């Protein structure tokens, strides 16, 4: 079933170097649409670089990255980043209060829509008027996720979104990823948690020493999302 899914991203012999340091070495893979793909591997293996290639925060030195068969440089980069939203590992808040934070993702968002987004990430609507400075790490991370969802992306790129969260917050993020896929979206997730990947990912890409050691065809988990 995973093999028959249309391809979302194609990486074709992608090499990335920065300042003489090799970050990815000849990586080729297909990431299917409409499911959650986990990227795992030890620290420094190039997982974050791979994720940043998918919304053009990084550019390959060699090889190419395609979205639905089209090379990323052929697409409007600003539109691409709204279609392919990346949520960083450490929450980065841009404004002074929660409503403004959500409006950074979608200007013109009304309070009902903003409350709906908070509900999606299991945060209470009463939080809308709260200053962002007082949020816990888990709340801030979920708010960043809601801000990304505000732009109505088709793809979510999540860079270790639960690494610093308590179990309840982590489960809430996993539920968001699951709902996003159920609604027709696609998720690419970096995770060090085998339990998490088995819970939410249909395929796992394993990066070791800047090279891919398992392709989607060699997935370590084929479990359907619950």
């Amino acid at each position, binding site marked *: 079933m995973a093999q028959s899914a249309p391809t979302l991203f194609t990486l074709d012999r992608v090499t990335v170097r920065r*300042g003489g340091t090799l970050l990815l070495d000849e990586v080729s893979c297909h990431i299917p649409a409409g499911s959650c793909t986990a990227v795992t591997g030890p620290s420094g293996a190039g997982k974050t670089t791979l994720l940043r290639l998918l*919304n053009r*925060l*990084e550019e390959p030195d060699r090889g190419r990255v395609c979205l639905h068969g089209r090379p990323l440089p052929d697409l409007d980069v600003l539109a691409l*980043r709204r279609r392919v939203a990346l949520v*960083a590992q450490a929450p980065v808040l*841009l404004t002074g209060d929660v409503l403004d934070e959500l409006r950074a*993702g979608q200007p013109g968002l009304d309070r009902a829509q903003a409350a709906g987004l908070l509900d999606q990430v299991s945060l209470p609507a009463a939080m809308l008027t709260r200053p962002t400075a007082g949020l816990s790490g888990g709340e801030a991370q979920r708010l960043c996720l809601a801000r990304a969802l505000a732009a109505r992306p088709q793809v979510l790129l999540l860079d270790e979104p639960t690494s610093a969260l308590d179990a309840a917050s982590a489960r809430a993020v996993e539920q968001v990823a699951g709902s996003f896929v159920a609604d027709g979206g696609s998720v690419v997730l970096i995770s060090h948690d085998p339990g998490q990947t088995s819970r939410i990912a249909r395929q796992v890409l394993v990066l070791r020493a800047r090279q891919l050691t398992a392709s989607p065809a060699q997935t370590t988990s084929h479990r359907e999302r619950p």
Partner: protein
Amino acid sequence: MNPAVPTWAGVAASLALVALAVAIAWRQRLRLAREITIAAARAGAQLTAVGAVLLVVFARAGLAGAFGWLAVMVLIAGQVAARRARGLPRALPVATAAVAAGTAATVGTLLALGVIGPQPRVVIPVGGMVVSGAMAAAAVTLTRLREEAAAARPLIEARLCLGMPAAQAFAPHLHAALRTALIPSVDSTKTVGLISLPGAMTGLILAGVSPLTAIRYQIVVMYMLLAAAALAALIAARLAQHALFDDAHRLRPLPVVTSAERQAGPGGTNESRRLP
């Protein structure tokens, strides 16, 4: 001779003040005695050489020579400002273009409106003040922009990830850098005459000009320094923004600049003392 203008013997006598500074540095073990001596010797030699060259330029080179002189000052100022912004992509052309544009627009406006006369003995000192002000503003702007871009990369990239163009993602940091660069000019304009008597006015009064005449010159000087700083800072910021981001609205990688390397630049040297 105007009694307010010191003779060469008077200049030599003023070395006693340098000796005083050296004595204090030596007594307090500041390890600055040698540096103070070298600085004083350099200042004397440099100013004597500049005076001699200016004498020739005023007498023979005409307006073209004056503009040539200004062009050399702009190139040197661009280098000084660029060294401050070490690590910023294309720092030298950005800084030089900003100082040149700020200087050209300010001096050009003063000449076009007839505020100053087109004589070398006017264009060179006025242009020198403008270049100095533009250099200081460009240097602070570029330094702050580089620091902001390096320190605020997660914030900037978070905005880029929301689909914001580079200019919008960087705007808060650009505005902060511009404010930092312009506040000294604004403050010195606000307080001029209250807590300091500025250089041009002091020089004219010392040369025997009426204070009411001297203030007219000083008012023009303050306004032109404000304009030169604002223009140079704005142009430096816009050009630096283009240099910091690529066509795909990505913040370029920035080399790590250590505090030792920053110190190795003009900061703390003679050039920095020339900054107002």
